[in-house]
């Protein structure tokens, strides 16, 4: 009976705290912007399987990796003049114009003459009502790829952040609590990880292991979890450790581990949550960089989209093929920025020193 009341009270208190923090968080304009961005990408990530399951999208056409659709276009065959300007073309760059094709490029299609209409597959195809963001050079739907990419980003970011923060929170608390040799060892370990150049290290790891999303998440999580964040969590835990309620728990006979888990960890948790949000940003960026350098073994991600558009040379065609270049790059930037802004907002909530007076 009593226990029930206590539980109810705790539940109520927790609800109250969440509501209060949410009200504080809502005050932070930037934090809310970040939250909207994250929700938007979460929506995109969930939308794609929904579209496939309900059959609105045909897998054969819209699959981000193996989908294919040829967009046909009818082009007028013309011959480009030798001298410019002419009536039709100001300079060499204007020929062929829109909806036209130079006859000289059709050497593989004999029998086509100037003035004919020629049916061509255009890949990459510009955005249309069927393909909202067009298709890439292999005829795959870019919008679907973006959705797939946001799934990858969420899985990788959240997984590695959770793992990393879990490790650093537990190790940091242990270091603060047990001190002595354990502490010394853990601190030297953090120093070592901080000393390693992260990108080249990832190159080496990718050299002897085929990295999939899961592997990368684990590697990033472990590296992040053993590094500098252990030091920060430890200093926070040290501050909590000397608080009166920890002493009173010790006097009433709580065991070390119990005190650690039920009193110290909950008080370190806000900082850990903050770290987690920030490390999602880092994980998304790392994945994109590795994909961009072609070192990852995953089918589709935002980094790979940019990698492909770069290796195919579209990135230097400027904005003519903007749908291959802009969406993926913006998606990485926005989602990473969104998580960062959410972290900022949380910082304003959890760090009373940052609150407005």
């Amino acid at each position, binding site marked *: 009976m009593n226990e029930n009341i206590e539980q109810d009270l705790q539940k109520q208190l927790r609800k109250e705290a969440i509501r209060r923090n949410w*009200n504080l968080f809502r*005050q932070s304009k930037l934090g809310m912007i970040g939250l909207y961005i994250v929700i938007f990408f979460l929506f995109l990530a969930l939308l794609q399987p929904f579209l496939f399951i309900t059959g609105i999208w045909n897998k054969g056409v819209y699959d981000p990796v193996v989908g294919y659709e040829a967009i046909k276009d009818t082009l007028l065959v013309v011959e480009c003049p030798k001298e410019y300007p002419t009536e039709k073309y100001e300079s060499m760059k204007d020929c062929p114009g829109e909806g036209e094709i130079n006859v000289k490029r059709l050497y593989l299609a004999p029998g086509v003459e100037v003035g004919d209409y020629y049916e061509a597959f255009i890949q990459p195809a510009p955005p249309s009502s069927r393909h909202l963001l067009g298709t890439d050079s292999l005829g795959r739907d870019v919008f679907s790829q973006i959705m797939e990419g946001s799934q990858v980003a969420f899985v990788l970011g959240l997984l590695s952040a959770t793992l990393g923060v879990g490790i650093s929170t537990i190790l940091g608390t242990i270091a603060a609590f047990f001190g002595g040799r354990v502490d010394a060892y853990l601190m030297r370990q953090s120093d070592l990880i901080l000393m390693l150049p992260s990108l080249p290290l990832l190159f080496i790891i990718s050299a002897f292991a085929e990295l999939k999303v899961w592997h990368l998440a684990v590697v990033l999580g472990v590296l992040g979890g053993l590094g500098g964040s252990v030091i920060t969590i430890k200093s926070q835990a040290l501050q909590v450790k000397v608080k009166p309620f920890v002493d009173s728990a010790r006097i009433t006979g709580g065991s070390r581990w119990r005190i650690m888990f039920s009193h110290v960890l909950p008080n370190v948790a806000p900082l850990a949550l903050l770290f987690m949000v920030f490390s999602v940003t880092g994980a998304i960026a790392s994945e994109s960089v590795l994909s961009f350098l072609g070192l990852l073994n995953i089918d589709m991600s935002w980094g790979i989209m940019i990698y492909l558009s770069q290796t195919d040379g579209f990135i230097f065609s400027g904005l003519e093929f903007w749908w291959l270049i802009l969406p993926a790059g913006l998606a990485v930037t926005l989602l990473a920025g969104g998580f960062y802004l959410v972290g900022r907002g949380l910082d304003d909530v959890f760090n009373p020193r940052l609150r*407005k*007076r």
Partner: protein
Amino acid sequence: MSKEVLSVKNLNMHYETLSGDVHAVKDVSFSVKEGESFGLVGESGCGKTSVAMSLLQLQADNAKISSGSIVLDGVELVGMNESELRKVRWDGISIVFQGAMNAWNPVVKVGEQIREAIREHYPEKSKAENTEKIESLFKMVGLDAAVIDRFPHELSGGMKQRAVIALALSCDPKVVIADEPTTALDVVIQDQILNEIKKVQELLGLSLIYISHDIAVIAEMTDQMAVMYAGSIVEIGPTDKVFSTPKHAYTRLLLESTPSVVGEKKKLRSLDGEPPSLINEITGCSFSPRCPDPSDDCKNQNKEMKLVEIEPGHFADNCCVDCG
């Protein structure tokens, strides 16, 4: 009769917060004469510090002075712009903050922080003159001249507080506000600091506004005093009169809840309850919920709070005068 240096009339100030406006200062009026010391006493959170901050126009960003006037030496401070205020601050009115520990920038030397204030108001003075001035101030408050080149954390709490007093005097202000200057110190040091303040005040003929929750200190330090409760002044008058014939129920309770070392042994009375929340507008007597023996006026909340003159110069709030 010496002239009034500072007069505050009908000052109203509130904080705009998420949960509503907090009316921290309500209709406060008082004046301080040249060379006089004025005490402001009340529980924590009754608006003492808010009054002090309003005097310097240093309120937090969400604080708004809705009405009233603060006149320092014939100059109106409310509504002044920042650059005019900067000239008045420290030169006209300076403050000794509560908690001297945090009043010093930890990474700048003590002497440099005082010098900075002088430099701001008297830019024509040379470095040697400033050093001389700081040394004489330090001597006055009983500090060694070597403290000039120390960092704040190298000083003890008492030394820091002395240095803060020196800092407050550095530009020869007309009025010095002492906002609970001894709260964080132990009793022996407290006494030394109080004596120091008193000595300096008499020596320089300063006007002093002394803010404290400790009514005994107020008795020792001040000529005039006011008792604040829930943002408004409930009793104001010459210190000896307020002590000998307290009129307001709250003042009486405050006096009876303080132990006295000399004189007969009395049972201390304690005050139940907490001060009211300042978020809601209170009509009628704000003290009535805690009044041990409320009169009809007090209980029924049918009288506006208003100071009435009981004897010359001694005013008390009319709704709780007759309480038990």
